C-alpha cells in the first residue's frame, strides 16, 4: 500500500514537474538547439553532433534578459520588478480588505448580508475582459493607464471577491468564543480582532494570498491594454518576444519564466505549513 502510494506520487510528480523541468533545461540552451526536429535534453559542456541528445550549456539566455528590450531602454528585470511590485501590492490590498470585510460578514448581522455577499460573488460572473473598454475609458479620465497604481487597483478589485469569500470561510471556522472571551477580558473589538482573529486567520490569509498573487501575476489582457510603457508586466513582455524578427527566442522565454515563477514557488513553500495545517486546530471543545 505504502509502495503504491509512493509510485503514484512519484508518477504524478514527474508529470507535474515536466513542463517546469523542460523550461529549466531550455533556459540553458542556445536558440539553435531549441528548434530542432530531434530534441536535445542532456546538458553538456561542448558542442556535439546534430543527432545526439546532448546540448551545450549556455547562460546566453539569462544574459539576454539583461539586455534592453527592442525599441526601449528596459530589460526583462524592469518588467519583473513591475510584476512583483504590482502583484505584491494588490495581493496585500486584497487580503487585508478581504479579511476586514469577511470579518464583518462573519460576525455581524448586516441587513441584506447574504445579498451583499452574493453581489460580491456576482462580480466574478462576467469574464473580466468584457469590461475592458469601459475600464479603459474610465482609466483615461483619471490618467491611470501606464501607472502601477492602475493595475494594483484593478487586480485588487478583481481579487477582492475571491478574498472575501475565502476569508469568510476561514473566519467562520474560528469560534466566536475566542474573541468574545477577549471582549469580556477587557479588550475592545478592534484589539480582539488583531490579537486573536488575525493570528488564527493567518493560515487562511496565506492561502488567499497565494491565489491572489498568482491571479495578479498571470493577468495579461488588462496589463497589455492599459499599458504601453512604465508599468508593463512580465506576461506582456513574453507576448512581445513573439514579434521578434529572428523568431521566438525560446531560451530567453524559458529563462524569464523560470525567474518569474521562482518567487511564487518560494512563497508557496514558505506558507506551506499554513496551507497544510488542519482546519480546527484549537482548544474550543466542540
Amino acid at each position: 500500500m505504502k509502495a503504491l502510494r509512493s509510485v503514484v506520487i512519484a508518477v504524478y510528480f514527474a508529470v507535474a514537474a515536466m513542463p517546469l523541468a523542460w523550461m529549466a533545461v531550455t533556459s540553458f540552451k542556445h536558440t539553435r538547439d531549441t528548434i530542432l526536429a530531434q530534441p536535445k535534453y542532456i546538458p553538456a559542456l561542448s558542442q556535439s553532433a546534430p543527432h545526439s541528445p546532448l546540448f551545450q550549456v549556455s547562460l546566453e539566455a539569462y544574459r539576454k534578459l539583461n539586455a534592453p528590450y527592442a525599441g526601449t531602454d528596459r530589460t526583462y528585470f524592469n518588467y519583473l520588478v513591475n510584476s512583483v511590485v504590482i502583484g505584491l501590492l494588490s495581493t496585500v490590498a486584497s487580503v487585508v480588505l478581504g479579511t476586514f470585510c469577511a470579518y464583518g460578514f462573519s460576525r455581524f448581522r448586516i441587513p441584506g448580508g447574504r445579498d451583499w455577499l452574493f453581489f460580491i460573488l456576482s462580480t466574478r460572473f462576467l469574464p473580466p475582459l468584457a469590461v475592458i473598454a469601459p475600464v479603459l475609458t474610465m482609466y483615461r479620465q483619471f490618467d491611470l493607464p501606464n501607472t502601477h497604481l492602475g493595475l494594483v487597483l484593478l487586480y485588487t478589485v478583481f481579487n477582492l471577491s475571491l478574498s472575501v469569500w475565502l476569508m469568510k470561510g476561514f473566519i467562520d471556522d474560528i469560534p466566536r468564543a475566542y474573541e468574545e472571551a477577549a471582549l469580556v477580558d477587557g479588550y475592545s473589538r478592534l484589539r480582539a480582532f488583531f490579537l486573536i482573529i488575525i493570528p488564527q486567520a493567518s493560515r487562511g490569509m496565506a492561502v488567499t494570498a497565494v491565489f491572489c498573487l498568482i491571479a495578479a501575476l498571470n493577468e495579461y489582457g488588462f496589463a497589455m491594454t492599459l499599458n504601453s510603457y512604465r508599468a508593463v508586466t512580465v506576461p506582456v513582455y513574453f507576448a512581445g518576444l513573439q514579434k521578434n524578427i529572428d523568431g521566438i527566442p525560446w531560451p530567453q522565454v524559458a529563462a524569464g519564466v523560470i525567474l518569474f515563477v521562482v518567487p511564487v514557488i518560494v512563497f508557496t513553500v514558505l506558507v506551506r505549513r499554513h496551507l497544510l495545517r488542519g482546519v480546527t486546530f484549537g482548544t474550543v471543545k466542540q
Partner: protein
Amino acid sequence: MSGPFLQVSGLTRSFGPIKALDAVAIDAAHDELLVVLGPTGAGKTTLLRTIAGLETPDAGRIAMQGRDILDLDPAQRDVALVFQNFSLYPNWSVRKNLEFPLKAPGRNLDRRQIVERVAWAASVLRIADLLDRDVTSLSGGQMQRVAIGRAIVRKPRMFLMDEPLTNLDAKLREALRVELVSLRRSLAVPMIFVTHDQAEALSMADRIAVLDRGRILQVGTPEQVYQNPVSTAVARQLGQPKINLIRVACENGMWIVGGQPAFQARHDARTARIIGIRPENFHITGGRHPAVVRVVEEMGPCRILLAEWLGEPIHIIAPQSAAVRPGDTIYPDPDPAAVLAWDR
C-alpha cells in the same frame, strides 16, 4: 451596600420568532452562588451573554451595584465569563492565557503584579506545574482549570459560568463542582452558574432560578425549589429519576386515578388536577393497589424500580434491602405529606 448586587428586570431578547428571554427578572446577592437551571434552549446562555454584554437585549434593565450597565461594553462591565467549551487561545502557553486578561488596556498592571497574580491563580487552581505547557496539550479537566484561572486572575466583580463542567467526565465534574463552590466562597464574589444538570444545581446553589423557554418559573433555595415546585414544569426539572406526575380527580376526599379511587387526598388540594410524587416518597408495601415491576435498576445504595401502577408508569426508589425483581407485584404506598398537587 444595600440592595442586591445584580438586578435583572424585564429582560427580553428575541431571535426571529423565538423568544430566548421573556421578561426575565432575577437578582443575585453580594456573596451568592445563583444557579440558573433549565433545559437546552431555555435561554440560559443568552441570559449570561446579555449580562456579560455580548448580547444586546430588546428590552429590560440590568443593574450592577445599583448602576445600569446596559450601555457599557463587555470590557467595562468587569465580569468574568467561563464558556462551556473553555475557549482558551490555542498555541499559547497556559501562562500566556492567564496573563492575557491582565494585559488588557486600562488595567495598568506592571510586570511584577502580573507575575504575582498569575502565580496566585495557578496555586489556587493547582495548575502551577502546567504554566509553561501549550494549552492544546492539556486534558479537558486541566483546560477547564485554566479557563477558571483566566476568570479569577483579574479579580472581576462577578463570575458568569456557562455550563463549565458539562464537557468533563462525571468524576471530574463532581470534584470540580465542590472545588468551585469553595473557591467562590473564599473569593467572596457573586457567581451566576448556568447548567442543565439538576444534580449540579442542587449541590452547588445558594439559590436556584429555574428557566424554561425564556421565562423564570421559580427562584428559591434548592430545598424550596425541590420540595415546593410551583408548577409541574419546575417539578420535572429537579430530581433523578423524574418526579411521577399523575392526572387525578378528587372525589369524597380520595384521589381518583384511572377511574378508581387511589388514596387519601391532601385536604388542602381538593381542586388539584395533577399530583406529583417523588420516587423516594413511596413505601413499596402497604398500599391499596398492586403494581407490577417492569424494570429494576441497581444503583448501589438503592434500587430504582419502574412499575405500572393504576395504569401509570411510575418510578420508585426502593431501599437496597427490598428484594424486588422484574415481574414481582408490589403495593406502593405514597407518603401523603410528600404528595405535591397542582391545579394544572
